[in-house]
């Protein structure tokens, strides 16, 4: 289990929520659509998660080929550990964008993760994130919940934040007393008032290490009409240089972590799952050929897993580049034929009701991205 409290503390997994307060005028007028981003750190292998039926896979990955996959289409199968994803697919509530990536080909985790969050071209050059800028552009106001703020969410002003803790929370009477020491009208008093106004569910102490719990808290908040609109999960451990394995391998375990988050979200959101979009985000895919340690090295093209009732249909959306050596990026990596940022920009434009061009300008520096809303999401 990778997304848990303990490991959040050690920096491997975390959860962030983001939303809009009811007081916001624009938010009140719009139908609430939730956007959940699950960051998969370490380089998620699109070819393991959504495996092409191409016979070439057997040649390049004889020792780590995933067996027991389930059929999605005639060209692609899904990893057996993605059970919840598959059941969503059957309901028309899961889809894949394949052979995609952020425009980054240098294979460094740190630079790549920085760019997947900033949405820019030069590592560390941008100090804000695409989701933060997108929320700012939506004028929805926001309630960010994270500790500390991940880069992807930076760029929206005055965020509220939440993250469950194992600490004993102060009781409300204690808080009222403490509040009496804060200067009236000060930012401190204002912040304290927001704490005091929090629903009880956000003021509980959590000892449990289970990802289900984190996802359930997130989904409770997301399903409230006046609750958060955006949640960000953070799952680590996809950097499988060794013992990547097939069905029961390390990469499969990490995919199962993602799948558990999806399960908890689906159950916790209930009907609101239909007004939700869950997207994955990773820094790069992995090399097509296996390495000497029965793992894979850093690559380029990968897949975006999508789930939620806002999807148009169950589909593999791709401009498939092929797996023959001549089709590979630098003769070694799955090529990326779709800029992953087109997907994220479309998702924000769609969920926050901001026209694509404006979103592109505000969140992605006006880069040449394609509006995929009509292809991927419900009309």
């Amino acid at each position: 289990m990778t997304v848990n409290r303990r490991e959040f503390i050690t920096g491997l997994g975390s959860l962030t929520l983001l939303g809009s307060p009811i007081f916001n005028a624009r938010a009140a007028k719009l139908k609430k659509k939730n956007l959940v981003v699950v960051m998969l750190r370490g380089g998620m292998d699109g070819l393991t998660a959504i495996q092409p039926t191409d016979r070439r896979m057997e040649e390049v990955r004889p020792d780590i080929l995933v067996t027991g996959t389930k059929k999605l289409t005639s060209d692609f199968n899904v990893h057996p550990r993605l059970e919840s994803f598959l059941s969503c697919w059957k309901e028309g509530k899961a889809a894949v964008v394949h052979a995609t990536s952020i425009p980054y080909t240098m294979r460094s985790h740190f630079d790549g993760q920085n760019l997947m969050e900033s949405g820019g071209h030069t590592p560390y050059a941008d100090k804000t994130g695409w989701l933060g800028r997108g929320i700012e552009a939506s004028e929805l106001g926001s309630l960010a919940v994270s500790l500390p703020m991940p880069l992807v969410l930076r760029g929206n002003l005055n965020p509220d934040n939440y993250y469950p803790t194992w600490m004993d929370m102060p009781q409300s009477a204690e808080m009222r007393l403490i509040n009496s020491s804060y200067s009236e009208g000060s930012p401190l008093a204002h912040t304290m008032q927001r704490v005091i106004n929090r629903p009880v569910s956000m003021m509980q102490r959590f000892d449990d290490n289970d990802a289900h719990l984190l996802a359930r808290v997130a989904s409770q908040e997301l399903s409230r009409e006046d609750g958060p609109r955006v949640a960000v999960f953070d799952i680590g451990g996809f950097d499988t240089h060794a013992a990547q394995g097939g069905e029961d391998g390390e990469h499969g375990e990490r995919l199962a972590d993602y799948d558990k988050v999806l399960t908890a979200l689906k159950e916790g959101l209930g009907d609101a799952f239909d007004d939700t979009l869950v997207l994955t985000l990773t820094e790069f895919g992995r090399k097509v050929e296996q390495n000497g340690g029965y793992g894979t090295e850093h690559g380029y093209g990968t897949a975006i897993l999508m789930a939620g009732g806002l999807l148009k249909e169950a589909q593999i959306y791709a401009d498939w580049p092929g797996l023959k050596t001549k089709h590979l990026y630098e003769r070694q990596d799955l090529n990326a034929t779709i800029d992953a940022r087109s997907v994220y920009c479309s998702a924000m434009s769609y969920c926050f009701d901001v026209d694509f061009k404006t979103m592109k300008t505000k969140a992605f520096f006006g880069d040449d991205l394609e509006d995929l809303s009509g292809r991927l999401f419900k009309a």
Partner: protein
Amino acid sequence: MGYGLREGEDIPDDPIKWAEQQIEKPAPLTWPGHIPTEKELLDHRAVFVYQDRKVIRKKYKNDRKAYKKAKDQLRYETGERYFKALETVIRQHAAVHGDAPVFERIWHFWCNHFAIAEKDMLDRWNTGVYQREIIRPNMCGNFTDLVKKVTTSWTMIHHLDNSQSVSPNSKWGKYDRKKGKTPSVNENHARELLELHTVSPAAGYTQKDVIALSYIMAGWENPHTDKREECNPVKFNANKHEPGSHKVLGQKFKQRGLSAKSKLIDCIEFLCDHPETPKFICRKLVRHFVCDEPTDAMVQPLVDAWHETKGDLPSVYKALIKVVYDNTGAEKKFLNPETWLLQCVRIGGLNWPPSPEDMEYDFKSKPRQKTREPGFIMRELGHDLIAPSQPNGWPETEAEWMSPELLIRRLAFAKKFANDNEIGLFADYFAIARRNFDAGEDVQKYLKKAKDIDFYSNPKRVGQALFSSEWMLKV
């Protein structure tokens, strides 16, 4: 400018002199346990990365469980789960038990100014010792010398990828091109040297300047060897360096003497002498200690001291101390979580940080919960000085620190500190408040209110109320 008065400590007769005495030279660390050196820690890292990348991945390629077990064992043997907590303890021990709290606070400022983000396990072995061995001994000299040390340190070079730079017309670059590869410089380090460490964007540099500086810096590397990977002392590799001269912010830099090393040294001197550098650094210092939006009048004395002494840092600190003193009472600063925590500990006489016995470690098994706790706690408070998420470090302003969740964490910790510590008597907290706060009467009234509420009859609650109060959060 410190962390408040401990029990038995008197208000100094001459606060300015009291503060000035602390910043003439680096204060000794106070930690009575073992303090590891950079070499020692680099050796641990070398064992970890070599074994991890070159040995166990191959050895256990077919056995995921055995691989995990071997990796955990490697973590224990190399202190991968240990040193970060130890570094936190070493740092905080000096703040709590040392006699130079002003020096310690300025040290924390520089650690954040020359921040090392959480990246490639730097927080596990390298960042803490970099703060102790590179920043601390060099922060009471000239700013230029401090920047030279930081820029050519192992940790900063690894952090900002300078080892990766192979400039196009260098010996290696030409070789790469023959092989069909495109050599390139990594711009990270050059960009942050300009943006974050010295002149700031106010200097109006362009991408051209960044690339020119990257050429000047190319060749400064942590050399790679088979058995130790990148864990070798910094060297200048002339074979990766771009020959010729380069212009940064209008100034031309060319080799003097036998080594092209001189180009970077000259360029750092130029950047540190640039008029924007003292303006940027001095404003940031005043922002850290006085208020979020310093006036020009507050910053100017520091800038003047900088110009008069050509960047002698103790002279700048002295000007800062005077500005802090002159604005005491008029300006209040919302303290960052670590400063607030250390203040609670120091004035409350709390049992923190853990003792050398608590921090003992056998390098054979998982460190005890108690041993790792100092690392966890800073993360829970949302402010881990060894592991900010970005190279621009932790925020310096109230707006960035003021969020419901971060406030709750402090309130929860205030409760925990009060509960964990044996200050049982109401009188103690009242005495603490009298000793430390000018607004004594208001604080006393507030604490009485805490005492008089039923569920506060537990004296520990009075401590909680004190630590959570505005008087503690905003100083």
